């Protein structure tokens, strides 16, 4: 129970919601799915702001992009059929079915935990977020995390934008964890644009390092304009292990994470190789 909460609010538009956030300052917060707010039991929280009347639960798409309302739950994302089903598989690997039924994509991104699977997946896929802070702004997820850290303005994340990936693009995502509902010890997403087997574009993102997700730049450089094959993949496994920027924490040592980053890179690339 959030013992200090005094009142719930249901704003009917974004301006009303923003005004509540500005009025309440640290004593008020938006409830997405609510999992994180309930778990953290913040003592200062006195006012809960629910987005139920803002109609932010939707998935729309056209030829170029997919628009996802911030209040869309993760289980709804499983319906997005792009990248030969790999996106759906990636989402299905996150947490457990009942938690995916309640966690929202906007809430997960706004919390911005460095180990978040959703952050790694959406950064790999070059997702963007739309926020409202009096004006409407669109940021890449990297820029959004910087904005969140540096800006003192209150904001509402309203929408997530994904490119509507068609042919030539291939994606694979692996999370390494002890149990389904545990936070990942390391996770990695790979997006490749292929012309036959030749790599024209590569996004390789390592998350849960335990810092924020980063590109494996050396692996990306070594993939570009090369033909994807098992020899190259074995070589890139070593490159990933040797160059990944990972750290120690109480859950896993740096050495283990370094080796693991090579293994995840190899497994992801083999999954893509088997798909083409």
């Amino acid at each position: 129970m959030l013992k200090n909460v005094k009142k719930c609010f249901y704003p009917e538009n974004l301006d009303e919601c923003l005004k509540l956030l500005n009025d309440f300052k640290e004593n008020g917060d938006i409830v997405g799915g609510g999992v994180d707010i309930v778990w953290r039991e913040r003592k200062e929280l006195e006012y809960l702001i629910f987005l139920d009347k803002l109609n932010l639960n939707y998935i729309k798409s056209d030829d170029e992009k997919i628009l996802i309302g911030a209040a869309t739950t993760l289980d709804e994302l499983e319906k997005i059929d792009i990248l030969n089903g790999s996106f759906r598989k990636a989402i299905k690997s996150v947490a457990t079915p009942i938690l995916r039924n309640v966690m929202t994509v906007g809430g997960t991104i706004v919390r911005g935990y460095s180990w978040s699977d959703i952050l790694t997946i959406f950064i790999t896929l070059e997702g963007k977020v739309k926020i409202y802070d009096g004006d409407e702004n669109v940021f890449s997820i990297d820029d959004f995390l910087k904005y969140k850290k540096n800006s003192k303005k209150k904001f509402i994340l309203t929408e997530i934008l994904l490119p509507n990936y068609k042919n030539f693009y291939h994606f694979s995502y692996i999370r390494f964890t002890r149990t389904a509902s545990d936070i990942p010890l390391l996770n990695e997403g790979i997006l490749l644009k292929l012309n036959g087997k030749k790599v024209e574009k590569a996004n390789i993102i390592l998350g849960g390092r335990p810092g924020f997700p980063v590109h494996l730049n050396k692996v990306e450089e070594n993939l570009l304009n090369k033909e994807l094959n098992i020899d190259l993949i074995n070589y890139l496994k070593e490159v990933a292990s040797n160059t990944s920027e990972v750290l120690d924490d109480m859950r896993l040592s740096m050495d283990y994470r370094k080796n693991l980053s090579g293994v995840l890179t190899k497994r992801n690339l083999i999954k893509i190789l088997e798909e083409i």
Partner: protein
Amino acid sequence: MIINFILNGEEVNFDAYPGETLFELLRRYHHYEVKGNNCKTGECGACTVLIDDKPIPSCTFLVGKVIGKKVTTIKGFGDIDNPDLIQKSFVEEGAIQCGYCIPGIIISVENLIKKNPNPTRDDIKETLSSHICRCTGYVQQIEAVEKVIKKIKEGK
């Protein structure tokens, strides 16, 4: 604050604290069939209820989100005198030992079979992955679900 919603088919008006979860509200109103709250993170799945036909851990669901929704607990499916097909199958297959996790598991399985009347063993395992059972090891539970599916197919 007064919370109005449909509970097991009946409209209810409960007086709720604005910061409490659906689990806490239901237990306060003597709905002890909702088990759990040992994890308070939605990880163990014991307190699962259906909210608008989706299985959701009630310990993570704030009452402010329940207004106007349709909530179904294990009592909405059957009780000890009138168990439904899934509940009967769990008893027959020895899938219940201490019983603590079972209401949540039955609710997830009800939802699985409603959404997908012909689930694979992997679908069943994925559904059960939402729930922690420390007695059975899940084998009997998987068999119980498969038995239900067989019975439904045979029209029993």
